[in-house]
């Protein structure tokens, strides 16, 4: 029968909602791009090379290993995403071999050794970042000042690092981190107060909506990793992912909620301000929290399966991030917190299976 020559036979269902793995990965990549573009504008063209090197290394590693296994897996876009996230987690002035090593480690060791996409038990990009952080700690903690600062200095301290060491030196009399930065003469762009030309000028009106000192943090006019600095653009990008249900609210809300409450309750004590006085806004926008909470903790593969499990996971990451940032010797804490909780995911999955229909005895209605 001529007219039936295209008819396919499959099992039901014969309809699909339309998503594919490739489309999900590609959506995340596209939503990440504004924050990356901002990083390149803020730190200069060299940071673009860092991003390109990480993506290229990740893609090539995946291509070679998959080829050796007789597969082709680049069309699911997950290698590009891993490479991009590795790049986003690099300081802008890092030597190019570091992101390359991080990407190779992420793909070859963390992902492909366990069987490729879907089998990795840890977020590959974060594992790569942590691997190189402990291997080249110097390079990985050297920050470049944003071009908008107009300073001649080639290095600058990150906000979190600056606050941490100032507190360790016990020289501050400030009541909070932003005040401490101001008193210590930590440079600002003037973005929040004065008019500003160039790239930063685009976001200046938004920065001015915040109290002095917070504007730079929110739009991303501070030293930091290439992709993590702009909380604003990361949040904007995530809106599409929330709408498309590629990320669900459980992990970000549990993560940020737990972290926020703990910071509010305890973080003020380091400044001698007692309980319930921590600067939540500062800690939300400083460092890699938004990148971690919206794009990395929500990685489908290395996070729990059920909503209940996601809540537990988010709470755990929030608690660990708080612990490392506020009480640890390390100024950041997002990457370590996430990969530690990644290790608990199988256990969480086991404990939080769905409730089966017809097992709960209902009362007579």
């Amino acid at each position, binding site marked *: *029968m001529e*007219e*039936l*020559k*295209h*008819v*396919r*036979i*499959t*099992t*039901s*269902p*014969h*309809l*699909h*909602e339309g*998503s*594919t*793995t*490739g*489309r*999900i990965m590609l959506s995340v990549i596209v939503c990440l791009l504004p924050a990356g573009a901002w990083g390149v504008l803020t730190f200069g063209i060299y940071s673009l090379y860092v991003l390109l090197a990480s993506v290229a290394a990740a893609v090539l590693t995946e291509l070679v290993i998959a080829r050796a296994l007789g597969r082709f897996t680049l069309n*699911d876009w997950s290698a590009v995403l891993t490479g991009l996230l590795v790049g986003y987690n690099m300081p802008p002035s890092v030597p190019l071999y570091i992101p390359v090593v991080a990407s190779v480690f992420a793909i070859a060791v963390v992902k492909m050794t366990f*069987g*490729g*996409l*879907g*089998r990795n038990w840890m977020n590959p990009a974060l594992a790569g970042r942590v691997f190189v952080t402990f291997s080249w700690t110097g390079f990985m903690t050297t920050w470049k000042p944003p071009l908008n600062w107009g300073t001649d200095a080639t290095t600058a301290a990150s906000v979190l690092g600056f606050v941490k060491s100032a507190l360790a030196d016990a020289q501050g009399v400030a009541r909070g981190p932003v005040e401490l930065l101001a008193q210590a003469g930590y440079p600002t762009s003037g973005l929040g107060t004065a008019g500003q030309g160039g790239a930063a000028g685009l976001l200046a009106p938004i920065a001015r909506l915040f109290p002095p000192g917070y504007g730079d943090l929110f739009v991303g006019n501070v030293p930091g990793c290439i992709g993590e600095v702009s909380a604003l653009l990361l949040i904007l990008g995530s809106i599409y992912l929330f709408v498309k249900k590629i990320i669900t609210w459980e992990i970000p809300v549990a993560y940020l909620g737990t972290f926020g409450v703990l910071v509010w309750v305890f973080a003020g004590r380091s400044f001698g301000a007692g309980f319930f006085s921590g600067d939540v806004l500062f800690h939300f926008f400083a460092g890699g929290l938004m990148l971690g909470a919206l794009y990395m903790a929500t990685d*489908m*593969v*290395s*996070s*729990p*399966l*059920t*909503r209940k499990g*996601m809540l537990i996971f988010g709470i755990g990451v929030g608690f660990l991030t708080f612990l490392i940032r506020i009480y640890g010797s390390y100024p950041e804490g997002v990457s370590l917190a996430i990969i530690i909780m990644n290790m608990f995911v199988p256990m969480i999955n086991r404990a939080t*299976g*769905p*409730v*089966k*229909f*017809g*097992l*709960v*005895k*209902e009362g007579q*209605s």
Partner: protein
Amino acid sequence: MRKLPTFPGGGVHPHDHKGLANQVPIRNAPVPATATLPMHQHMGAPAECLVQAGDSVREGMLIGKATGPFSANVHSSIPGKVKEISELYLPNGIRSKAVVVEFEGEFDRSGKSSEAVAWKEAVPEDLLGVIRECGIVGLGGATFPTPIKFSVREGTRVEFFVVNGVECEPFLCADHRLLLEKTQELLTGIEIVRRILNPDRVVIGIEANKPDAIEALRTAVRERQLDFRVTALKVKYPQGDEKQLLKSLTGREVPSGGLPLDIGAVVSNAGTVFAIYEAVVLRKPLIERIVTVTGPVLARPGNFKVRLGTPVGALIEECGGFTEPPGKLVAGGPMMGFAMADLDQPVTKGTSGILALSRGQSRAFPETPCIGCGRCIAACPFGLSPTVLYKWIDHGEYEEALAAGLMDCKECGCCAYVCPARIPLVQGMKLGKFMSRKKKG
């Protein structure tokens, strides 16, 4: 506006595509030149063939006898001569003996007025006997023999008799048209069932995307002063599954592995109730059913009263044929129906629809590894973890899959509908069930 009830856990919201045919009144499909009548078109044991090649059969004559309580009678849908006893594979994979009847002679019943039988005085056992005699099975698609469903042990109280007018499968609107056009007959059918089951309450559940049907039933119930409740339900697939429907309507859960009767309920599809009406009042065996013939590649989709055994091709022709070559032909709805590639396949008792999907809708996507998104778990209305079950089955660990609740799976397809990795989860579940049955011996 009051919030409409539905079941709480899982489920999906596919586009319903019902607009293609839900305004088209039911028409009589042409009498087929040959009717192919499988002996195994119901759940349970196949019927025993009573005729041979060359025999003359009359319309409505018993040609297949039920081989036990868990089986059903099969009748000839047309008068004529038995051409051969063939064997064929039905779209659901069952291999069945089939009686092929060539149309010949006169109709005994069609076009002739028959006197209505006085059923109100009949005892329930006799009514049940008529239903058994007429080969009535569940017409929602599962084709469970209705007499078994209605054989309630003495002393068991039936609190609810639920009429399933949900029709949650996209595209299908046969039940919708039936509710709308045969409202009075349907209510009489319910009265007959009420006489058999003696339930405390009668509830008719209809999804809110059929407002005209809800209105028609409510009006008719009021006019006839019946105490049936007509409940509008929030649209959500798979609400037409009887366990989910009962959850929506009564808040009770049928225990895992149990039957609706365990929570004091009996559920029948609207089409089944109409067939019961025809069987009891008109003494007409189950030889016809309403079929939606629809799809984006059909010239004129519609709803038809079809004689069982009619080849699918004849119905496609009645719809004006294909406007472009279809990508898939489905017997039943798009979520649970069976794909087929043969226009000679007969319409059987379980065929609620014939669906011709476009090539775009039927595009094949490569399967990629599970990325653990958890969408299948969120979508499963039975609280299962399809991804976990699939992995057990894939690894041949059927015992583990059974322990994880494989038998609770109704193959509704919600999991595969949302899976971004395009893993054939339902196929896996079917395989798992098949293999564990085989292992059990």
